[in-house]
């Protein structure tokens, strides 16, 4: 994979490539993709893709009101907060 493709992919993945990352991670990514291409030797014409081994249908449940006991405990995990709000840098 060339440097531009790698940088585009990293930007989409919201990862910064820093000094030295380009060579090291770039090589590992290219090696994986080249390996994936070995699948092309296999004829898969006309086969249905398997997205899930055993799940065949969508499952729904009644839309009923229930209490969540987790909300406050989860909010407390935020790195920075004010009351029940999560603080982030200015958006505008």
């Amino acid at each position: 994979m060339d440097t531009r493709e790698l940088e585009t992919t990293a930007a989409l993945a919201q990862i910064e490539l820093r000094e030295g990352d380009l060579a090291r991670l770039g090589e590992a990514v290219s090696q994986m993709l080249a390996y994936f291409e070995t699948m092309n030797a296999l004829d898969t014409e006309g086969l249905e893709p398997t997205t899930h081994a055993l799940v065949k249908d969508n499952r729904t449940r009644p839309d009923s009101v229930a209490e969540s006991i987790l909300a406050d405990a989860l909010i407390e995990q935020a790195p920075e907060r004010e009351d029940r709000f999560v603080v982030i840098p200015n958006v505008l």
Partner: protein
Amino acid sequence: MPSDWTRFSAKLEAYKAYALPLEKTIGSFLSFRPDSPASSAGELAGIPFAVKDNIAVEGFPLTCGSKMLADVISPYDATVVARIKAAGAHVIGKTNLDEFGMGSSTENSALGRTSNPWDATRVAGGSSGGSAAAVAAGLVPFALGTDTGGSVRQPAAFCGVYGLKPTYGVLSRYGLTAYASSLETPGIVAKDLGLLETVFHAAKGRDPNDQTSLDAESSTARPVKTIAILDGLSDLDPAVTAVYEQTIEHLKELGYQLVAVTLPTLEYAVPAYYTIAMAEASANLARFNGIRYGHRPVYAENHESLVRQSRTEGFGDEVKMRIMVGTYVLRSGFQDQFYTKAQKVRTLIRNDFAKVFGQADALLTPTFPVPAFVHGDKTMNEFQQKLADKFTVTANLAGIPALSFPAGLAGGLPIGMQLAAPAFAEARLLEVAAAFAGRVPVADCPGTSLDWSK
């Protein structure tokens, strides 16, 4: 059931005198709290267990072996943990793993180093390396892990204990930190097969919080008569070949009929597996952005920069590589070439298994082509470790159950063999493994003991 463990609370000080020095050498836990309160009711009453640190346990950290989540404490229990607790067992620690379950050695953990209790210069395997090491060292009688492509079975094989990857959906994934959702399942590591079975039955079944969870169908339970073996296996370490051949002889002498079969798609299972796993990982790990929880940079000018810095600083190299590959194969224009292709290969693998199980009740293969390798082994780098996953990933692609069992020793190291069966036929795996253990008892890891319970 090993009766010694029910005396755990009464013998706590003796246990700690045994466990704490040993744990210093092997490093199986990321958090270790032997004093956690025990329960006195239920079929597992008083028995302690350990949980891989990517599965939620209320009040314990949930680090996933990552700097990203180093400070996160779980406010709830995963369904499998809650069910095992309800049966009377109690959690005494969270075990080390490759970051987010990505690896085969536990060397990708950002938070600790785990060594094999059989030989501390060697790895415990991965990604559930801490769980397997803790069980092998006699620090807990059983532990939970997760298995996305072999992460319960391979460390179990390296450490000389049992590792069960059940049928996809039979153990709920609620409370697991998602890596590759269509492939992964909780799994159980234990040294005692009867205990493993009790834990499995306590934990299994449909869960309203996991829409892919399933009730096990029992119709496939029948005595095993025929076992398939693969024709023309190559690329195995001589130690693994030797134990594999001995295992076949033992199974013949136990009266099983062995049938040679082929899995024509086996060589393509690993690229298909990693294409799917990395694609799903890139989507699942998008949630880690340093906003609601997890690592946040000291300073960020704006929201975008906060997310980017959080991920860049929080994730290790292997995780970044997998996210980037996954992002690439899902980019418009590349999806058919990689992702859809891999899903079609997955169809072929399922078809292969359907044929095999038309001819035999179960399939025997080695769990991993080599025994536990030494820390930092250059011949088993990250890429080579992935190639070696071929026997284990097939079960995840097909969603079928598989069990790694201790089959013998070679050069002082345990070697594991794997049995696979059709969906919901876990009973067949346990039945054959129990018969085998009647002939070849599970070896004790040198230096481990249950004397503290006396």
